[in-house]
């Protein structure tokens, strides 16, 4: 277990270092989400409506998709997945490390996006919304990282990832919007937690088959 965590930490550190050096993913995600929120602000006449909260989730999911699309870029462009697959670490550690790195980027983006949303829309951001976003992030990254690894092997990878990811992200959007607009957010938070658990286990268990022929 210690070795597994050490491998995951080494791989996640590498991904964070790559982003720190390249600065390709994070700025694009921030710019994208802020642009979306600005556009929504001007498109909606009632700035405290449920629609605004719903659109927050659209912004989060598409911003995450942007980050996921770049998750395996270094590995794809330089054939580096072979190097990681050859290493004697558990292959699921590659998935977990990518998940953690993508999650870190997404959380950083949301540290800007949620205050921006509260600034633009009068409804603000309550604790239920923050909890829902946190739970949704885990689900998005768990499923998205697996699908990004699958897409990387395909030819139409830019098209394949959204095609695979968006249908699977629908329950997250439903749970997230529910937790944000409903009186009782607990039910929806439970749903998001269950989604995270099921899909994290599935992604963890199947990743090895995705990265090996």
């Amino acid at each position, binding site marked *: 277990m210690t070795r597994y965590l050490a491998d995951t930490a080494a*791989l996640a550190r590498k991904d964070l270092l790559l982003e720190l050096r390249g600065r390709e993913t994070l700025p694009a995600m921030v710019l994208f989400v802020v642009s979306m929120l600005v556009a929504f602000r001007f498109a909606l006449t009632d700035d405290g409506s449920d629609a605004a909260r719903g659109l927050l989730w659209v912004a989060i999911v598409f911003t995450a998709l942007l980050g996921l699309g770049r998750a395996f870029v270094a590995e794809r462009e330089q054939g580096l997945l072979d190097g990681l697959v050859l290493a004697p670490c558990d292959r699921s550690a590659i998935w977990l490390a990518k998940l953690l790195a993508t999650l870190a980027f997404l959380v950083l983006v949301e540290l800007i996006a949620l205050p921006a949303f509260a600034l633009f829309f009068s409804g603000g951001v309550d604790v239920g919304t923050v909890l829902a976003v946190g739970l949704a992030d885990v689900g998005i990254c768990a499923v998205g990282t697996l699908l990004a690894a699958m897409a990387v092997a395909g030819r139409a990878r830019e098209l394949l990832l959204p095609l695979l990811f968006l249908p699977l992200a629908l329950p997250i959007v439903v749970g997230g919007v529910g937790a944000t607009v409903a009186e009782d957010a607990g039910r929806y938070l439970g749903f998001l937690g269950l989604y995270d658990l099921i899909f994290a286990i599935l992604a963890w268990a199947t990743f090895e088959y995705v990265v090996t022929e």
Partner: protein
Amino acid sequence: MIRARDLSKRFGGKRVLERVELDVARGDFVLVTGPNGSGKTTLLRLCAGLAAPTRGTLEVEVGRARVGFLGHEPLVYRELTALENLELYGRLYRIEERRERIGMLLERFGLWEARRERAGSFSRGMLQRLALCRTLLHEPELLLLDEPFNALDAEGAALLDRELHELRGGATLLVATHDPERLVPLASGRLAFA
């Protein structure tokens, strides 16, 4: 060390390897030769476990922790320095006394001075040297080298020659090349034609 029986590999409808029979004993130095597109790379990738055979069986005695693979790509991150790349692999391969081993390889392959430079700034030849450091880092028992002399200058080629001479008899080597002349004297009396 390696035992292939009726080994075949197809990519879609394209037949790349057909009914290959291969026995490689521990300590052998086997040269795999043939023209471009003859399946040398595929054979090595199958042996490394990076691809699965379409038909037949392939048994490799050692696990992936003891396999060193040098392919067409150097398998190093361009945004990381030479040292960071080897540190990463050193951690994943759980090498004890990692720093010493990395330092020794960087010295041996003439990259010590450039150790803190990003791999992306390296020439093709330097990348190949770094790739060789990565491949040899964990002292593999089975070495699979695909066109290892590619991009190496005379000095780099001489370093690799010396390394292969030292490894001969210890590690098992499978070297794929379309230009076997340099390596024929090293092969243990056997050439494999893919």
